[in-house]
């Protein structure tokens, strides 16, 4: 019985819902502040993402005439839920809300599901900007899926010592035993590849080819306003937290004895990962063109991932 | 017996060559039936042997030491010939319909489904 309450608490409170929502809003706020500071300007208050979401909740929702109303309103909810459920799998230290022995494949598919709901929602909105936006989102998905899969296979193979594992618990245990994987030089290219994948997966500035305000008027979200828009914005923030959490789970899983220290280390490493992978490219480079994104991911990033995969395969 | 095998494989190769190179639908169908003849010859020659006689005998009349030809491949050849005939008939009816619809028999022009 205690185990059941403990797991329900885990799901609802700590590594589960409450922690995810708060952490994602703070992380998005810190990211925007860091970008502002890098451009030597004051930048918005840290809780700005919260205000954005609350403001969108307060505005009226217009369902365009040509939209398919059910799918138009349902897609954002399913997208937000699938991303929240993905956050359940991420371990803090060695505690995670849901534990299965094939976490990585489920995470991979839930992230795909989140992007699919974004695509189906924009397709249902019936605007030409959304049509172009969804095809760009799909191209982005194709480009980052290959390196993401390779990195997962590499880490799974390293931590499985013989039999490959897809469960984050075993990966955590391996890292607890012989240090976080980031220190292992063979895995540096894989870490770099994952750092590159994160901004494109989340749809952050240099790679947000699907919501390019200047080119295709908010592309995927052209017709969204009010509550569905709030859910999509919240999904964007939670995805940012989930991806940095995934990086921490795979490469930076430092497990000290007691839980509070784990949480602190986890938050600090999440902020660090967000800074390196999302804030710096946002402040430094302009938005990529569509085929540049594809070429960049399938040559540079896949090369890094393949390099570390082969090095691991040779048995280093 | 090996001569039969050479001839049958020659027929199969000839038929395939005819299907690949000829651009007239009728010749393609002819090529298909040549391939069928090659296989039928192969089936029959597998079961055959020089000294063997037809495996038909009245009850109790078996003289020990007589060689019989294996009957099963001959039965298979019958089926294969029947199937070859049906396929050729089907192909020819399709060729007639194609000609009435496309107005040509040249395979290079009958390529609406491509890419």
């Amino acid at each position: 019985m205690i185990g059941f309450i403990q797991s329900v608490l885990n799901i609802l409170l700590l590594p589960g819902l409450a922690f995810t929502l708060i952490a994602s809003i703070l992380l998005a706020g810190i990211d925007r502040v860091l970008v502002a500071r890098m451009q030597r300007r004051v930048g918005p208050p840290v809780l700005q993402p919260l205000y954005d979401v609350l403001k969108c909740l307060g505005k009226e929702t217009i369902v365009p005439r040509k939209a398919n109303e059910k799918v138009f309103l349902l897609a954002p909810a399913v997208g937000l839920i699938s991303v929240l459920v993905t956050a359940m799998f991420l371990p803090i230290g060695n505690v995670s809300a849901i534990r299965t022995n094939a976490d990585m494949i489920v995470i991979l598919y839930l992230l795909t599901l989140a992007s699919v709901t974004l695509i189906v929602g924009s397709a249902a909105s019936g605007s030409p900007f959304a049509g172009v936006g969804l095809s760009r989102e799909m191209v982005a998905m194709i480009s980052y899926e290959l390196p993401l899969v390779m990195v997962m296979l590499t880490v799974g193979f390293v931590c499985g010592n013989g039999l490959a594992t897809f469960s984050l618990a075993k990966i955590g245990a391996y890292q607890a035993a012989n240090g976080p994987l980031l220190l292992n030089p063979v895995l540096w290219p894989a870490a770099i590849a994952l750092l590159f994948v994160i901004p494109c997966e989340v749809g952050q500035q240099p790679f947000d080819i699907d919501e390019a305000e200047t080119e295709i008027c908010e592309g995927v979200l052209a017709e969204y306003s009010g509550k569905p828009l709030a859910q999509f914005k919240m999904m964007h923030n939670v995805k940012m937290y989930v991806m940095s959490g995934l990086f921490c789970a795979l490469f930076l899983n430092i497990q000290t004895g007691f839980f509070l220290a784990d949480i602190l280390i986890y938050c600090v490493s999440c902020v660090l990962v967000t800074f390196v992978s999302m804030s710096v490219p946002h402040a430094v480079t302009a938005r990529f063109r569509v085929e540049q994104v594809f070429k960049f991911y399938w040559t540079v990033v896949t090369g890094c991932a393949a390099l570390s995969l082969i090095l691991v395969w040779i048995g280093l | 017996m090996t001569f039969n095998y050479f001839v049958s494989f020659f027929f199969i190769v000839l038929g395939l060559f005819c299907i690949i190179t000829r651009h007239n639908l009728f010749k393609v169908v002819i090529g298909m039936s040549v391939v069928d003849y090659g296989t039928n010859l192969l089936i029959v020659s597998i079961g055959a042997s020089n000294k063997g006689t037809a495996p038909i005998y009245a009850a109790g009349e078996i003289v020990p030491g007589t060689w019989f030809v294996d009957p099963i491949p001959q039965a298979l050849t019958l089926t294969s010939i029947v199937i070859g005939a049906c396929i050729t008939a089907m192909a020819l009816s399709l060729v007639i319909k194609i000609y009435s619809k496309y107005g040509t028999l040249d395979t290079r022009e009958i390529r609406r489904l491509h890419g």
Partner: protein
Amino acid sequence: MLFDLDKKINEAIDDAASKSLWLYHINAGSCNGCDIEIVAALTPRYDAERLGCKLTGSPRQADIVLVSGPVTLQSRDRLIRTLAQVPEPYCLVTVGSCPCSGNVFKGSYAVCGPVDKYRHVDVSVAGCTPKPEAIMAGIAQAAAILKEKRKGMHE
């Protein structure tokens, strides 16, 4: 609902309405003088993001609609159509003196009057190319008006 949770949520949203302002800029035939000033207000030097401002590409996500230019004949229908597509509650801010009075172009055959003829203007930022600080002041006033409008919506 239980211990008036929805009242607290509505108050939080009204407060948020004044803190997160998404701008959408309509150029109703302006000479681009005001457009450059608006964009200048968004650059790091004047940093409109301090107020929570962000430029959006689609009117569906607009809170504050910035209109510049004296509403020429060609852009009249487009202006009305875009304003109709913005979800409530939103503020209409006219940048420069052209939209609020027609400036030097007043009375010309190609100009059909100030923006006021088509929709109630909440804040008018005067000046032929007002300085970015003036635009920022206008946006700050619009934020307060937005909060009132939002409060009016759910009473």
